C-alpha cells in the first residue's frame, strides 16, 4: 500500500512517500502528486523516499517524472529527491537518464494532403494494374504459341481446386436462386393462370444472366481471394524474388496456370449452375401440379442456343478477369501483417466490380448484335 503525505515547511513542500511504489501504488498517487508539484512550482519541492519499502521501474519513472516537473535536472536530483535507499538508486538512475518526452508524435496529415496521397496511390495502382494486365496478356499469347511452356500439372491442380472443389457451393447457390426466383415469380403469375411461364423466365434468366453471374461471384469470393493470398504469401516469403533471380518469369510460372485454369473452368461450372438453377425452378412448378415434361418443353422451346452461347462466352471473360485480378492483387502485396488480408479483400472487391462492369458491357454488345 502506497501513501503520500504532504507537509509545507518554510515555503518548501515536502512530499513524503511510503509503502510500495509499484504500478498499483503509482496509479493511486499519480494525480495527487502531479497536481501538488504543478501547484507548488519549480524549486520549492522535496521528494522524500525514506519510508518507501519497494520500488520498481513504474515507481522510479513516477519519481523521475515528478522531479522533472519540479524543475530538477538529473544533476540536481539529489537535492530534490532525498532518502533514496541503496537498492533503489540504480532504478532511479536509469529512469533519470531516459530522454523522456524528448520526441513528440509525428504531425497529423491534413485532409488535402491525405486526399492527394490517396489519389496518387490510386493512379499508381491503376498504372500497375494495367501494366500487369499487359504482361499477363503477352505471357498468355506466348504460351498459346508454345503450349509446352505452360505448367500443365499446376494448371490441372488449380482447375481441380478452383473448379471441381467449387462445384458443391455453385450447385447449392444456383439451386436456391432458381427455386426462390421461381417461387417469387409464380405467386403473381398464378393470378393470371400463367405460372407455367415461370419456366421461360427461369430458363432465360439462368442461361443468359444468373448462371454466369452466380458462378463468377462464387469464384471471385473463393478463387480470386485464394490466388491473392497464395501469391501474396509467396511475395512476403521472397519466393517470387527467388523465382526472378533463378531466371524464371513469375508471371508464366504462377499467374498463367491460374488464369488458364480459371478461364476454362468457369464456363464448365456455369453449365452446372444453369442446369441446377433450372431444376430449382422445376421443383416449384412441379409443386403446382404440372408434369416435368411441360416445364422441359417450355424451357427448351424458349431458350435458344444463342442464349446459351452468349452466357458461356461471358464466362470465359469472367474467369479471365477473376484469375487475373486475384493474381495481380496478390502480386501487389506490400509488407506487414495485414498485407495479405488487404490483398485478398482488394482481389474480391476488384473482381466483383469488374464482373458487374463487364456484364453491363456484354448486355450492350448483345443488344446491338441482336442476341
Amino acid at each position: 500500500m502506497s501513501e503520500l503525505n504532504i507537509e509545507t515547511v518554510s515555503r518548501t513542500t515536502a512530499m513524503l512517500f511510503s509503502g510500495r511504489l509499484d504500478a498499483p501504488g503509482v496509479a493511486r498517487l499519480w494525480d495527487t502528486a502531479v497536481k501538488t508539484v504543478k501547484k507548488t512550482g519549480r524549486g520549492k519541492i522535496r521528494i522524500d523516499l525514506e519510508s518507501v519499502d519497494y520500488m520498481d521501474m513504474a515507481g522510479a519513472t513516477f519519481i523521475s517524472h515528478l522531479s522533472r516537473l519540479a524543475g530538477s535536472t538529473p544533476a540536481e536530483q539529489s537535492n530534490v529527491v532525498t532518502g533514496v535507499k541503496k537498492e533503489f538508486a540504480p532504478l532511479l538512475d536509469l529512469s533519470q537518464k531516459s530522454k523522456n518526452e524528448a520526441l513528440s508524435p509525428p504531425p497529423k496529415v491534413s485532409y488535402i494532403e491525405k486526399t492527394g496521397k490517396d489519389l496518387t496511390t490510386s493512379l499508381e495502382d491503376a498504372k500497375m494494374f494495367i501494366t500487369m494486365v499487359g504482361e499477363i496478356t503477352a505471357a498468355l499469347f506466348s504460351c498459346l504459341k508454345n503450349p509446352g511452356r505452360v505448367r500443365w500439372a499446376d494448371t490441372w491442380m488449380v482447375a481441380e481446386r478452383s473448379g471441381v472443389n467449387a462445384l458443391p457451393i455453385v450447385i447449392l447457390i444456383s439451386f436456391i436462386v432458381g427455386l426462390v426466383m421461381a417461387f417469387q415469380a409464380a405467386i403473381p403469375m398464378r393470378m393470371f393462370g400463367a405460372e407455367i411461364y415461370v419456366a421461360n423466365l427461369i430458363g432465360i434468366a439462368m442461361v443468359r444472366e444468373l448462371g454466369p453471374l452466380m458462378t463468377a461471384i462464387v469464384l471471385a469470393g473463393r478463387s480470386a481471394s485464394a490466388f491473392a493470398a497464395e501469391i501474396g504469401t509467396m511475395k512476403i516469403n521472397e519466393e517470387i524474388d527467388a523465382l526472378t533471380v533463378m531466371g524464371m518469369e513469375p508471371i508464366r510460372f504462377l499467374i498463367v496456370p491460374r488464369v488458364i485454369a480459371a478461364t476454362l473452368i468457369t464456363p464448365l461450372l456455369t453449365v452446372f449452375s444453369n442446369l441446377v438453377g433450372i431444376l430449382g425452378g422445376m421443383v416449384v412448378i412441379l409443386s403446382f401440379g404440372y408434369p416435368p415434361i411441360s416445364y422441359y418443353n417450355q424451357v427448351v422451346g424458349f431458350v435458344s442456343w444463342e442464349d446459351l452461347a452468349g452466357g458461356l462466352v461471358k464466362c470465359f471473360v469472367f474467369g479471365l478477369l477473376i484469375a487475373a485480378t486475384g493474381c495481380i492483387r496478390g502480386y501487389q502485396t506490400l509488407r506487414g501483417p495485414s498485407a495479405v488480408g488487404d490483398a485478398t479483400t482488394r482481389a474480391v472487391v476488384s473482381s466483383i466490380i469488374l464482373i458487374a462492369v463487364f456484364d453491363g458491357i456484354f448486355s450492350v454488345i448483345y443488344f446491338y448484335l441482336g442476341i
Partner: protein
Amino acid sequence: MSKTIINVRHLCAGYNHNAIMEDLNFDIQSGEVFVILGGSGCGKSTVLKHMIGLVPPVSGQVFIHGEDITNARGKARKRLLAGIGVAFQNGALFGSMTVLENIMLPLMEFTDLPREAIEAIARVKLDLVDMGHALYLLPDELSGGMKKRAAIARAMALDPAILFLDEPSAGLDPLTSAELDRLILELAGALNITFVIVTHELESILTISDRVIMLGKKEKGIIAQGDPRKLKADPSNPYVYKFFNRNP
C-alpha cells in the same frame, strides 16, 4: 544467498504425447542469467514454451514462485503470467501499432495507471533498450535488432521478475548481438531481473550466462550443466567440449 525462483520437475517436453525431452529437472535462482542451449531442433524452444505455460507438457511440472504454471487456470494463471515477460524470437510485435503503443498495451490492460503515466513508463522502457528514437515507427519499419529490443521493452513493461528470451541474438550482426548482451547484463544488474534465455550463440552464452543447461537430442535430456566457461574448458564430455569449442 539468492532463492530459487523456478523449479522444473520431471518435465517431459513435447507435443501431442510425443516426448522430445524426458524427465528434465533443474532450478533457476533469482537474479541469475540462465541459458538453455543445445543443437538445432533439440527442443529448447519447446521447453521454454512449457515454462511460460504456453504449451502443456507431456508430463511434469514447472513451478514459478512455488506455483505450478503448467496446471494453473483462471486467476492463478493470470497472476503468474503477470510476473513474467517473454520476448519471442521474431519480436512478435503487433504490426498495426507503433512501437510505443506496443509497450503501452500491457500497461493499459493490466494497470489502473493514467495514460500520462503509462506513456512515461513506456518511454523509459524504450530508452532502456535504446529505442527512444523509434517510438512512432511501426514494427514493419524496424530492423531485426530493433524488433528484438522493442520486444524486450514490451516484455519488461509490467516490471516482471523473470524475463524469458527466445533466441535473442539469432540473425543479428556481431555488433548488434554484443549490444543486446550488454543490455541483458545491464538490466539483470540494475533491475535484478532473472533471465531465462534460449540460444545457441556461443559468444553470447559465454558473455552473459551465469549457468547453462545443455540439452541433447539423442539423450532426450540434460547432457551438461553449470558455468559455461568451465564447460568450455572441460574435455571430459567430448560432445559438449566440441560444441563449446566449435570443433566438429
